[in-house]
């Protein structure tokens, strides 16, 4: 089991969701975050005040998956988020100790497997 964190451009968030949906990855959380990668700072001017904006808006995806789903998830996030320009984001994969589905008390693999309906 892994926790996959993908940080992507906000305008690509819908494409990533669509790609994850097609890859049959169902459990996703997203957060709006601000961060700084290698991209160039933008310069903005408000009346006499000129500022360099070092933080960019990003959307952070968190997806907890069983081992079989790690590669498809990474592929889906990459495909959805890539534009080829600096600032497309990063994907981090980290080990996950336990997972619990609150409703049923199921743990681990069962907890990250989508419910069949």
């Amino acid at each position, binding site marked *: 089991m892994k926790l996959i964190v993908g940080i992507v451009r906000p305008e690509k968030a819908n494409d990533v969701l669509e790609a994850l949906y097609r890859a049959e990855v169902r459990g996703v959380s997203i957060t709006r975050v601000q961060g700084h990668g290698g991209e160039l700072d933008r310069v903005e*001017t408000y009346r006499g005040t000129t*500022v*360099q904006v*070092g933080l960019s808006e990003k959307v952070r995806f968190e997806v907890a998956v069983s081992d079989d789903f790690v590669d498809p998830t990474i592929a889906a996030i990459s495909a959805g988020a890539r534009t080829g*320009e600096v600032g497309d984001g990063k994907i981090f994969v980290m080990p996950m100790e336990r997972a619990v589905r609150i409703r049923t008390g199921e743990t681990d693999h069962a907890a990250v497997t989508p419910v069949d309906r």
Partner: protein
Amino acid sequence: MSGLPNVLAAARIDTGDTAWMFVATALVLMMTPALGLFYAGLVRSKNTLNTFMMCIAAIAVATVTWAAVGYSLAFDEGNGFIGGFGHAFLDGVTFAPREGQAIPHLLFFAFQTTFCVITTALVSGAVVERMRFGPFLVFAALWSILVYAVLAHWAFGPGWLFNRGTLDFAGGIPVEMGSGFSALAAALVVGARKDYGRLALLPHNAVYVLVGAGLLWFGWFGFNGGSGFNTGQNSTLAFVNTLLTPACTLLVWFALDAIRGRRVTAVGAATAIIVGCVAITPAGGFVSPGFAMLLGGLAALPCYAVLVWRARTRVDETLDVLAAHGVAGFTGILFIGVFAQLSWNGVADGIAFGDAGQLLDQGLAAVAAPAYAFGVTYVLLRVMGAFTSLRSSAQEESQGMDVVHHGEEAYVTGEGAILVLPDAGHEAPKPVAEPG
């Protein structure tokens, strides 16, 4: 020496009329920033400022083009199609009133300027979120002359529609049909936003939309109430109808919303206010209060239908200028031909009161003005497009027009913003926002 003509002019000026026209002119000018607010609420947050700025830019550009040649082409004698250059650069526009009016000519000019400004701003609704700002400025300048001034000449100046007796109280022809059908052409030439029809592109702030619509309605009392250029009966009728018509449009719109989606929507209500105000614009001083209320309810139907239908097409006429202005203006112009009432307006009867010829005059305007506006705008943008790219790249579109074209954002947090000091340059920036 110049004292004598001014004294003579003053004698023919009505102080009450003039005082009202000062206020009406200011009210109509306020409608353009109000429209900016209305439009800004309807777009995504990353395009808020650019959308607003297109309206502000219309004030800058169209005021200058109108003072230079637009006013003259609309209101100077000329021929039936277009006016002459007799009033170019405000030549001869002084304190002496125009024929049949009791307000200074200069004030009449200012009032008409605010109409040209808001009409130019209206067209921007078709191309927001993708058109480049520079080409928009050029388009606004040319459009205000080639389309607006010509249609204003037809309807208000001594143009062919005006001369044959077509009635248009406050601008159903140049303002509403002119902007609506031009917007359709502009949307077709500039093309859809890259994510149109693929992603949900939603209004980012419905409160702006409602406040904008409310301020527009407020300003519309000057727009319609001032279009008699006096404080007489037709002006009073238009002023009061501006209250009655949109209220009825709102009620019918509520019903349509409830039937279609089981809920009454706020963005729909804001739209209904605009539709009602637009519908009564041409008819304001010509129909009785009762028929004005009928018009309000009636106008909701075709506008609602076009609005729903347009969203299902590939035509990204983004803020539905065609539905809200073109179709509502069209409805109002034809409505005059049916329900105009000599006993109320002192000018003409519609077909319902025995004059079929009036409906023909109105019908001609309802065909000619849309055709002219659509055709000229289409060709103008095609020609401009041959010289320069009208729209931003797909990448800029996803970044948002605010940052790309203005280097500003509507909703800045200041987090991560580093002050660039003039003497330090970009080398040693000083952090201004400490985390936490």
